[in-house]
């Protein structure tokens, strides 16, 4: 199969409120939002604070550390583009700053992943513009 025929993974459709987030991911930084009014930290990026509805939000660079809150080992890929990765781990990561995000746990034996496993962010480029934040055992 030539490169042109390789099926593409799902690319995030970047929106006005996420431009900064994805640009910083491409530079190897994970951004959260912090509310200037009440201090709430949230993910994913939004127009309003989910705690107090203030629109006074600022970006906060995450430490990138977290723990596995739950996970699954995908044995049957969602589409041909993901088949080479089987078995791969889809997980919910509880970040040190509080919010939870979905991600993959990479660079380890899928069978070794457990709830509570400490992990650290890293970035996987899927195109020139887009790098996905993924996590590896800390």
């Amino acid at each position, binding site marked *: 199969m030539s490169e042109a025929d390789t099926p593409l993974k799902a690319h995030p459709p970047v929106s006005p409120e996420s431009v900064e987030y994805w640009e910083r991911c491409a530079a190897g930084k994970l951004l959260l939002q912090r509310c200037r009014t009440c201090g709430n930290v949230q993910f994913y990026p939004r127009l309003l604070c989910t705690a107090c509805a203030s629109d006074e939000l600022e970006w906060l660079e995450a430490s990138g550390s977290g723990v596995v809150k739950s996970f699954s080992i995908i044995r049957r890929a969602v589409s041909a583009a993901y088949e080479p990765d089987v078995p791969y781990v889809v997980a919910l990561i509880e970040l040190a700053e509080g919010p939870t995000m*979905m991600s993959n746990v990479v660079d380890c034996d899928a069978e070794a992943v457990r709830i509570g496993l400490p992990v650290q962010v890293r970035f996987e480029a899927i195109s020139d513009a887009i790098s996905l934040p993924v996590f590896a055992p800390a």
Partner: protein
Amino acid sequence: MSNLSGKVAIVGAADTQVGKIPHMSATQLCIQAAKRAMDDAGITKDQVDGLVTCNSMAEPHMYHAEAMAEYLQIFPKYCVSAGAGGGTTFAVLYQAAAAIVHGICETVVISMADSLRTGLSREAAMVMQSSSGHPQYETPYGSTVPGYYALIAQAYMHEFGATPEHLAGVAVTCRNHACLHPGAQMREPITVQDVMDSRMIADPLRLLDCSLVSDGGSAVVLTSAERAKDLPHQPVYLLGAGEGHGHEHISQARSLTTSAAKESGARAYAMAGLGAKDMDLAQVYDCFTPVVLIELEDLGFCAKGEGGDFVAEGHAAIGGSLPMNTHGGLLSHSHPGNPGSMFALTETVAQLRHAAGERQVEGAETALVHAQGGILSSHCSVILGREAG
């Protein structure tokens, strides 16, 4: 405060054949279900002045209910195509009931069908279903729908010590019931060991923990309690209904192990003036086995964390204290996508008419039907009974 309780009844109910039906389109299945339900109610299409459908994935229309009304050549006063995933069925049921009570219309057909099995390629069906993930923050990570639900299962097992055998017990109970339903897609008995031996799809969910992919359709006819008395069948009254919404995307869930079924159930019980102990049977949404355990707990049928033992001890079997999914559920009767929980509704009508044959729950007077859509996201509970209250 006045409410809907006891004012509207289901007077007609019917299913199409389910499973692989390559010779019929999703539109034909929707129309056939509607026609059969009208026949069952003893009414003609010209008496229908409300139509509710849900869109088909295999044969979509931009304005689905309107397209079905045109196909039928009916000219309704109330026409809506609902879309809230698996929770759709019961939310539209009480919305249609409200339309009847408020004089918007008199007789509503709710008909839903799809051809997920033969109308879409396997890959197209998987991609379409997994598009329920957040397009920016979930979908790129490549989860499948079983994968999303596996996140719930893993968290539930970790928190409460539930075992794979507990999950398997749900699949076995549903299969036993499907074996008693002549129209069910899967009618070969299975054991807990069969479930444990089936291949892993997304840990900890094995093939037999996952619901079916089916073609099929199902419909009901709703009218006022007053009109229902003049129609041929025992009316099945709507006694209570309630919704609960916790999140849309699983990564944003308030809890992975307690669902908004807790709220939808409490609201439905309050409207009906009844409680979990008053239910003679329940149909609970079983897209994946762990969901059933969480719902049984959140709907008040057993304590938190005890769903697995409740099922393993036989309480959920026909003959037990709370027979559930008496037609076999999405796990063993059929699951054509969004229309899936319609079959739980038509089954409940059969049970409350005392017309469910071999699988009849003896003396069934009152039942709870529950569905959820998304990834344990949007919940709707409905309570039905033989008496208007």
